[in-house]
């Protein structure tokens, strides 16, 4: 099959628009991807009938999401950081945070790109100025946006992380793919979800995995 190669004009126009969208800074594209995966988690919670709201650490509703651009503590002095609150009809609530640190088994702190944990645990951490522990995490997600293939060291690093923060209901999510990473991660318990981008059929698979992961919390805390 012939390859469609963009002309110089098409390329220049596309690059110009991509620049104006801020994509020259790779961290901005990483942020966008985390935001996108965040929205998939919201969709999963809604499948369980959750009422989703966005609040800051003082429980004030947020119309704009304020996320950590670098790993931070749940009890940040900057109280404006937003988290999503999943209010389930017949189970205890969950909160979803972006870029918070959790205490690993070795007692070292590790960043979770997306951390979903019980509201009561998160509230207690904020009150006592503590970091959540790995065992407190209902769901932990590592997000990797790549324009190329996801590299093997990323999978190795993720597996190392799951030794520290447990490996059940832990996800490595990427827009890219990699047979090698898939093979390595799938050999163990964590979930590897590749090709996560709009209109990809794999998004539904990720959403189903998240729905199942939330179900285990719902079953445990059903009222």
């Amino acid at each position: 099959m012939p390859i469609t190669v963009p002309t110089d004009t098409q390329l220049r126009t596309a690059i110009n628009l991509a620049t104006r969208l801020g994509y020259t800074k790779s961290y901005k594209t990483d942020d966008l991807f985390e935001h996108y995966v965040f929205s998939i988690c919201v969709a999963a919670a809604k499948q369980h009938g959750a009422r989703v709201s966005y609040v800051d650490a003082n429980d004030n509703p947020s119309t704009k999401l304020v996320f950590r651009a670098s790993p931070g503590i749940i009890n940040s002095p900057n109280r404006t950081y937003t988290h999503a609150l999943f209010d389930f009809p017949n189970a205890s609530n969950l909160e979803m945070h972006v870029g918070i640190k959790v205490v690993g088994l070795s007692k070292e702190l590790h960043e979770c790109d997306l951390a979903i944990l019980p509201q009561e645990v998160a509230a207690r951490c904020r009150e006592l100025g503590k970091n959540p522990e790995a065992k407190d995490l209902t769901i932990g997600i590592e997000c990797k946006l790549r324009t190329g293939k996801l590299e093997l060291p990323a999978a190795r690093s993720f597996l190392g992380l799951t030794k520290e923060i447990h490996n059940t209901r832990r996800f490595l999510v990427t827009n890219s793919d990699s047979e090698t990473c898939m093979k390595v991660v799938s050999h163990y318990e964590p979930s590897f979800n590749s090709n996560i981008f709009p209109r990809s059929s794999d998004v539904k698979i990720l959403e189903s995995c998240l729905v199942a992961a939330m179900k285990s919390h719902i079953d445990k805390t059903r009222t």
Partner: protein
Amino acid sequence: MSENSEEAFQRIANQLNESGFDWVVLEVENSIKELEDARSQKSDKPHLDSSGKLKILLSALETLTKQLPAMTLELMEEGIPEAEWIDDRPSAVEEDDEGRKSELKKQRSLALEIRDVIPQETDE
């Protein structure tokens, strides 16, 4: 005279490098290297041909011009509030707030515009 795969690869990679998308070219080069490393374990001809390399670069371009704008648009369509990313480390440089706001206003129209610039690969 028509452009061959190697020339097309160079032309696109040069444009990306010159426009601040060197990180994309680097990721593409890493992908090619990793793929060749994997092939070297199975075959005595590990090197990708120029058309294989070009496909990887075009796929990176697609991430930039199709996937990312589609994420921006989907977030808007799904009613997920816009996000502001704040770095509260002392070393962090404050971003110009006015500049950021005006950039956000343009996001939607730019994301819509960029998707149609480069034709989609026919085999998708």
